[in-house]
């Protein structure tokens, strides 16, 4: 009995404070979470909207797609159908991530409506070296992906960046970062495409 009394005497303030602080955080979270969610959606829509002109609404795909990440972990892909205002499918978008030079690189990739060509990508988060690795955000690198086949991509150090094909010319001075981007996109896009073809969500390219 004395033990319990001692315990309560010592800890009543902690217990009450924990309860009160927990309540405070819960209330703030409840008040702000719709706004935070909306911010995330707005950001994705803004990015994919510029990559896929005409995209207005984004509908998550009904069936789940899981890919093996570059580290060999199974990961669920956030895959969205991008719809035009008239309700037509204009393409797909998904998030892909992998390690870059300094830290994790997170990308949003947009693909055309038949999953044949890449419509482009943008960097969601990255911590690459300013002036070097962060050139992956610049148009002259990103433009090489626009119209490239939605399949396996190959990083090459020499080549013509203006030619749009599966060979992506890496940035000199940022080889690791640019190769990482190519690898992240290539790795995720091939697996996603395969699974979507298996599920019959897109044509397998043979009948057409």
């Amino acid at each position, binding site marked *: 009995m004395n033990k319990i009394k001692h315990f309560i005497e010592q800890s009543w*303030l*902690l217990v009450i*404070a924990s309860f009160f*602080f927990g309540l405070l955080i819960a209330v*703030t979270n409840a008040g702000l979470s719709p706004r*935070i969610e909306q*911010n995330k959606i707005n950001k994705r829509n803004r990015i994919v909207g510029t990559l896929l002109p005409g995209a207005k609404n984004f509908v998550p795909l009904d069936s789940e797609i899981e890919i093996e990440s570059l580290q060999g972990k199974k990961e669920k892909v956030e895959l969205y159908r991008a719809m035009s205002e008239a309700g037509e499918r204009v393409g797909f978008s998904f998030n892909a991530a992998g390690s870059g030079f300094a830290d994790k690189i997170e990308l949003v990739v947009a693909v055309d409506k038949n999953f044949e060509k890449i419509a482009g990508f943008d960097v969601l988060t990255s911590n690459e*070296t*300013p*002036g070097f690795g962060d050139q992956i955000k610049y148009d002259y690198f990103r433009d090489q992906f626009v119209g490239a086949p939605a399949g396996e991509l190959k990083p090459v150090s020499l080549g013509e960046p203006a030619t749009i094909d599966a060979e992506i010319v890496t940035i000199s001075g940022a080889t690791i970062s640019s190769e990482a981007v190519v690898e992240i996109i290539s790795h995720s896009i091939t697996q996603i495409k395969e699974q979507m073809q298996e599920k019959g969500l897109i044509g397998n390219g043979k009948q057409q």
Partner: protein
Amino acid sequence: MANNSDAKAALYTQTLLAGLWRENPVFRLLLGMCPTLAVTAAVKPALTMGCCVIFVLLCSNIVVSLMRNLLKPHLRILMFTLTISTFVTIADLFLKAFVPRMSEMLGPYVPLIIVNCIIICRAEACASKNGLAVSVIDALGMGVGFTLTLCVLAGVREILGTGALFEIEILRAHSQGGWFVPWAAMSMPVGAFITLGLLLGLVNAVSKKTKH
């Protein structure tokens, strides 16, 4: 009566000024080095970080000061951390909701305010021993002192690293036809260490001179 209020006013001014110069958290106490080095590549994130720290410091000093007589000595650090983490989480949620881009830029450094030594140091050294008024003034002095220091550091780094201040171009870059070649190193961690070291040396030199 008059003497009493005079003494009080003097105490308040002294507490306020202590945080700004004599006990400046960054230059004098060398506390909170992690955000000082990490978020000072530009002025905007530094200012945001400073405001978050002022908010957390103010709230935690108020709460700790109010419950200072109820604290059990061996549980006090636990109570401080609990209080601080609550207000940091709230600040983090507000940033995510209202300035999402800034929140992304600051990344993990906002949640890391929880382990910022300035706040726990003020809770332990000031708020748990003093009344509400002194604690509030102390929080403001220390918070503003921290923010100003961060902004000075960030200002130096942003101008040298990008040629801009508050993202407004001041020195025209060489690639745009100007004469200034941005020092990319200044935007990188190495720039933070060098600038902080030089500023610390400068502050030491100035305070040595004023003492003599």
